[in-house]
């Protein structure tokens, strides 16, 4: 596959064009937003389309933010920052790590794994929580401590009263937390084990119910589309509801291929998720999505996508499950890799006050890359409405260099959006100009 040949440092390209003409002759970014995205027929050439980000340093550059906003890096040289939590006193906790131990089953896994690793950081998994503090509120986080270490690829974070919950890739654990603490007072207590065998999709997203009694854990599938076998998918591709006190769990919703970020809608208490959908059936399939999560709902994976569109790669099929599949609320576009989600607040400025921010890590399975930005999805009457608006861009510039890849996005109620960038290992903070 050709790509931006004017600068070979831009993107590694990994396709034999002739083999793919039928597949990738055109993959324009089609209108795949909202509640009824265009869904083309599934297609795939002899090789999957791949355009892998080639990392480049930020240098003097910074991400691009809308007029009236400013951006700054508040922490650098982290060890793979993913998700964050703003504590009541304004401190920021950052979960750092990289997990998964899925073995290569086919020659393809070895080759594809090597190619994809080129587009990610070479820094080792931090397996820790870092705390940032801006005591004087000037926007500079002058204190940085390691809050906890020797965790196992921590990802989701939630605070309920004095309990800090951390979703490691293999277990949900709890720290005691007192306001102002810069370091955990001891080792964590295990709340419950989480499904961790293989861990093809290892990230365990986490959020707490409005009343704090229940925790929701996002557990990704163990494959793209069951190529590791059906048995590997037991307890996968679902959201668990965990009793915070006892650790007892039950599936809250299923058929969600990779629910990478969960959050509760203020006011309604409704659980929302962003979910990464399946690959290798074309540049414009299947849209990743934002959805309110219905209790007991089945969202299609692996049998079908976007409601009842059957995925023929799955055997045995299950027509009954397909018939029960719920159509998600809002398509974010195919292959954008939505990994971050948070509801906004009035302090983010009138234009971006009511809605959600979504962090998009960016595509690999597409000739023309998409994602690599943070978007804002406006809500009207409590539901997503209209087109997503670019909020932070410039992670991948037009000349093709990829300087950052957004993961978690967290709104600081004091008026800032905090963004974890796991390629440059940086935390970015975007504020309305005028506020600090």
């Amino acid at each position, binding site marked *: 596959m050709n790509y931006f040949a004017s600068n070979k440092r831009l993107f590694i390209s990994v396709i034999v064009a002739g083999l793919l003409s039928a597949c990738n002759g055109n993959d324009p970014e089609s209108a795949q937003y909202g509640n009824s995205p265009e869904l083309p027929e599934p297609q795939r050439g002899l090789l999957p389309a791949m355009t892998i980000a080639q990392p480049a340093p930020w240098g003097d550059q910074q991400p691009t933010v809308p007029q009236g906003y400013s951006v700054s890096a508040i922490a650098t040289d982290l060890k793979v920052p993913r998700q964050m939590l703003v504590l009541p006193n304004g401190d920021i906790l950052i979960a750092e790590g990289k997990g998964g131990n899925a073995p290569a089953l086919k020659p393809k896994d070895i080759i594809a794994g090597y190619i994809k690793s080129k587009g990610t950081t070479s820094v080792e998994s931090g397996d820790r929580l870092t705390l940032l503090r801006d005591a004087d509120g000037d926007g500079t986080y002058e204190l940085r401590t390691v809050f906890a270490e020797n965790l196992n690829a921590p990802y989701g974070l939630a605070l309920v009263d004095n309990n800090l919950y951390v979703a490691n890739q293999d277990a949900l654990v709890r720290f005691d937390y007192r306001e102002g603490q810069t370091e955990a007072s001891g080792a964590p207590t295990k709340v419950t084990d989480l499904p961790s065998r293989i861990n093809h999709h290892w990230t365990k997203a986490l959020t707490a119910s409005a009343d704090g009694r229940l925790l929701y854990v996002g557990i990704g599938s163990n494959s793209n589309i069951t*190529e590791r076998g*059906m048995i590997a998918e037991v307890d996968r591709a679902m959201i668990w509801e965990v009793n915070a006190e006892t650790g007892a769990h039950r599936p809250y919703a299923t058929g969600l291929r990779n629910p990478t970020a969960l959050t509760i809608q203020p006011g309604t208490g409704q659980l929302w998720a962003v979910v990464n959908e399946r690959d290798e059936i074309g540049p414009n399939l299947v849209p990743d999505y934002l959805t309110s999560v219905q209790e007991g709902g089945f969202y299609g994976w692996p049998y079908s996508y976007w409601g009842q569109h059957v995925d*023929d790669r799955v055997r045995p099929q299950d027509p009954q499950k397909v018939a029960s599949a719920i159509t998600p609320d809002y398509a974010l576009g195919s292959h954008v890799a939505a990994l971050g989600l948070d509801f906004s607040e009035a302090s983010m400025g009138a234009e971006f006050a009511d809605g959600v921010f979504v962090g998009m890590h960016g595509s690999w399975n597409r000739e023309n890359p998409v994602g690599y930005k943070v978007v804002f999805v406006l809500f009207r009457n409590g539901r997503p409405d209209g087109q997503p608006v670019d909020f932070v861009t410039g992670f991948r510039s037009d000349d093709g260099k990829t300087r950052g890849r957004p993961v978690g996005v967290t709104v600081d109620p004091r008026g800032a959006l905090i963004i974890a960038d796991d390629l440059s290992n940086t935390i970015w903070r975007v504020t309305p100009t005028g506020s600090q």
Partner: protein
Amino acid sequence: MTVNDGRPLHRRLHPLHGVVLAGTVPLFLGSLLSDLAYTSTYHIQWSNFASWFITGGLVFGGFALLAAVIYLVRAEHRHHHAFLYIFFLLATWILGFFNALIHAKDAWATMPTGLILSIVVMLLACASTWIGFARFGVGGAR
């Protein structure tokens, strides 16, 4: 180089050449049988086995092709059998490579093309091996 000592026109296959050539048959047969097992059981491990059998077949077939080309280059008399032999080896390898790419698709996406190609490639491997041994191999004299 072989001197004409009254034996046939063609040199026999080198033992290693014979091994890699014959090896393509069980390997490509293995991929065919694995594909059949996958289609009847839906157990993904059969599909994984098929992928590796094809890879093995390509490695052996690649060496056989290399040996055949060397044989051709060094032969005193370039008999048309040698070209036929290389043609079949090359066809086996190219279709085998396509089959490897088909088998790199996820889950049932390998089917039915993967099974059809596995049948074709297995037959081609048999044909190449037959020609290789019948014309140049065991027994030598023709």
